[in-house]
């Protein structure tokens, strides 16, 4: 029914991409992954801890979802390039979620380093899904640099504030030449539905599910919300009207 969701020539079976950060346990993560019906999950690259056994990969591989390494924590294009290469080596995938943030308080992208990093990673053969702010011009520049998907934030990471500036998201969607994925800020299902109604191709979220009181149930909610928002976008909503319009006939009233 829906048209396929394709990034860099690869079709993904779901328009909901799940970040794995924040899940209280692998068991809870597994339940959330299943309930979300997602086809791709992000992971971070960190130092091996000899103590630990088992890994997030066990869950994701067992569920057959694509693994997308990110560059979370990187502050410069250089760090991001090295981290991306390690992720590619470790997970045997040229895909990367590029994050280059300016500081740990806002976790907002640094536009200059982000653009540099995108150019470097594209040049190094990566398929770059880039986490960016909601500036339509930076989004344009990132696409000119060759990113495979542009992923604007709705609000700061983990804030749950939803989509603070829908107008910018609409501007980004209007001229996008690659898929637009709303990334960061989603707090609840209606936020995810709105993102899709604005014309986004997919939604990426982590905390909204992994830190909800019932992660699996929220994951199922997000799956339905993304589907709902996508269908509503395609169905062509009624226009907003300042005044009421009757939904029952005004003729044929009985004389009572």
């Amino acid at each position, binding site marked *: 029914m829906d048209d396929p969701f394709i990034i860099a020539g690869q079709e993904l079976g779901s328009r909901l991409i799940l970040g794995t950060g924040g899940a209280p346990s692998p068991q809870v*993560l597994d339940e959330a992954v299943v309930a979300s019906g997602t086809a791709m999950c992000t992971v971070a*690259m960190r130092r091996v801890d000899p103590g*630990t056994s088992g890994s*997030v990969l066990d869950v994701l591989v067992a569920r057959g979802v694509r693994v997308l390494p*990110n560059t979370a924590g990187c502050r410069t294009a250089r760090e991001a390039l090295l981290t991306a290469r390690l992720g590619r080596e*470790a997970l045997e995938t040229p895909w990367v979620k590029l994050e280059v943030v300016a500081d740990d308080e806002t976790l907002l992208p640094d536009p200059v380093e982000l653009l540099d990093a995108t150019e470097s990673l594209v040049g190094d053969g990566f398929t770059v899904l880039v986490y960016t702010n909601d500036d339509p011009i930076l989004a344009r520049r990132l696409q000119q640099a060759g990113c495979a998907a542009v992923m604007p934030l709705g609000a700061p990471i983990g804030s749950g504030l939803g989509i603070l500036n829908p107008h910018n998201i609409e501007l980004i969607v209007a001229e996008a030449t690659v898929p637009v994925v709303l990334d960061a800020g989603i707090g609840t299902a209606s936020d995810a539905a709105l993102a899709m109604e604005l014309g986004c191709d997919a939604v990426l979220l982590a905390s909204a599910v992994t830190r909800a009181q019932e992660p699996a149930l929220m994951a199922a909610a997000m799956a339905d919300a993304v589907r709902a928002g996508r269908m509503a976008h395609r169905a062509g909503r009624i226009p907003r009207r300042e005044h009421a319009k009757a939904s029952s006939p005004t003729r044929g009233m009985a004389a009572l």
Partner: protein
Amino acid sequence: MTLTINGERVDLPDGSTLAELVTSWAPAVRGVAAAVDGAVVPRGTWTQVALCEGQQVELLTAVQGG
């Protein structure tokens, strides 16, 4: 010889290879990547990479994230 592995100073027998280090250090080799002195070392070459005194080795793996 002494190297720095993931930020810790570690003593290794001379002539140790990166492959040996990874095997001893990581619970499972799957999903692990290695960098020596800031350069990524392809998995296929680990057995031929002899480690040297004072090198900085980073062994990374995938964890829950973003």
